[in-house]
């Protein structure tokens, strides 16, 4: 291979780079145009100062944190248990965790609205708290494929059986084993799943909008329908947030162990 690189490779890369970078530059330029005749960060100031932005953003961050906690609570014990005791269940569990990629979010939330209405046997939608809980549950379902794969990859790099035996010999019960032995060992994997979940949940529109929750996604959509320059500023902010989450994941990957110390 030539060191300089082939001309067609440079050309492809260059054309691709133009397609991907021009919209970012254009959006940034547009977001600076709010004041006539000069470039300013006025649109950003207006966005950050808006109480709606602060409320919906805070709401979505809180929902994202609960989603991550629920996801960890569901996924870590399951992935651990399947690895340790019930490997024959692995295909079924993996199949279920991949279902949210097959069933669109809008269909899942449609099912919720019809199943968990005020007059149903589990009336989540009867109260605001219940609807919030249902939103967190729905987001955990959306994040399931990413969370499960992240945690399962993490578990592959540790010797689950030996760690469990060692903990049991010292008299640990199952909550202690999972919470204080397994979880800290797969923490990096859990965190990278968590950042991905965070990136997905923060700007999610469909579920929040159909459940009528005041989240960041519906707020952005609403602003886009009514304003000119603020949406461009929001697009830049959202891009930077996604970038931050992905950088965190890459950063964590550097600290993740590459393989098991002992073969299983």
């Amino acid at each position, binding site marked *: 291979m030539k060191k300089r690189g082939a001309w067609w490779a440079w050309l492809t890369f260059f054309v691709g780079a133009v397609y991907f970078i021009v919209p970012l530059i254009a959006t940034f330029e547009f977001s600076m145009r709010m004041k006539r005749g000069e470039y300013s960060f006025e649109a950003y100031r207006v966005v950050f100062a808006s109480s709606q932005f602060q409320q919906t953003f805070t709401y979505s961050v809180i929902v994202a944190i609960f989603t991550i906690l629920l996801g960890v609570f569901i996924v870590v014990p399951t992935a651990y248990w399947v690895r340790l005791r*019930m490997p024959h269940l692995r295909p079924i569990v993996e199949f279920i965790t*991949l279902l949210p990629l097959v069933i669109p979010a809008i269909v899942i939330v*449609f099912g919720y609205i019809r199943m968990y209405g005020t007059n149903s046997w589990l009336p989540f939608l009867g109260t605001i708290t219940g609807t919030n809980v249902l939103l967190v549950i729905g987001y955990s*379902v959306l994040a399931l494929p990413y969370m499960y794969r992240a945690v399962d990859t993490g578990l592959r790099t540790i010797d689950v059986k030996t760690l469990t035996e060692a903990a049991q010999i010292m008299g640990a019960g199952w909550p202690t084993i999972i919470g204080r032995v397994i979880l800290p060992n797969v923490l990096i994997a859990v965190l990278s799943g968590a950042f991905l979940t965070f990136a997905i949940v923060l700007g999610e529109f*469909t579920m929040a909008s*159909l459940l009528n929750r005041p989240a960041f996604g519906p707020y952005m959509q609403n602003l886009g329908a009514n304003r000119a320059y603020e949406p461009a500023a929001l697009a830049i902010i959202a891009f930077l947030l*996604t970038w931050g989450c992905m950088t965190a994941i890459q950063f964590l990957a550097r600290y993740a162990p590459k393989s098991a110390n002992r073969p299983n």
Partner: protein
Amino acid sequence: MTDISLSDPAMARKTAPPAEARSVRLPTQWIGVAPFFIFAVLFLILPTMYLIVGAFQDRDGGFTLTNIFKLFEQPTIRQSYMVSIKISLWSAVLGALAGLGIALAIVRGGLPEWVRSSTMTFSGVASNFAGVPLAFAFLATLGRLGLVTILLRDLFGFNLYATSFNLLSSWGLIAVYLYFQIPLMIVIITPALDGIKREWGEAAATLGATNWQYWRMVVIPVLWPSFLGTVILLFANAFGAIATAYAFTGSSLNIVPISLYAQIRGDVLGDPNLGYALAFGMIFITGLANIFYIWFRTRSERWLK
């Protein structure tokens, strides 16, 4: 919970295969996975089944196929499926080809290492940069006052909007979807390209193959399943997406997720069961796509270990 300890004879015999029949008989084994299955049944499987069953019921709950037939008969619904399939298919095919081209450039083009690492990092970000903000970015770029529109007008005297160009059309949406489809293709196909071993090229050259023969008879057959599989994944990815399209065109573009959104909001079809059928149609298409995806994936994994 001491009954599930390591004194379990099935665990003591390390070489023994997982005792399937045995674990079924010990209900305590299932406590570990029970929360997961209860969660999945309640919040993933039952809600979906509810809609699927509803799609095959009339108003009184009796079995019927009328709703499914109506999906084909009603012009607006048929149209929305056609537009959705068109957008998803074109954005998947074009995204896959462009993504493959860029992936080939960074893997095989002998470009410096920083090109590859920055492309991969950016692809990771851009493949997750979808939804509402992406629509804003394209409106700010190619809208009537967007930078590209203005630059074309001022620098080249070319008025984009004097042509038949319309950003808020299905082709406009395809161009927007490519912004996350191409990076997703790069993220998935680059490891597959890395899996094509240099030894294969050397072996082919030793046997007297030309470069073209090597590509036609080795590289393309090996890559083909992962390429097709990823096209299908991109298709499903675009088919279920709604946020970008909704923020982009409002409800003016008639695609299935937007029709379904309007139906959930206010039963615009005036027929709840037809609404379920609309949802069933979406699951059916993405489900079919994913069955093909899994099939291609298992075929490609034979070579790319």
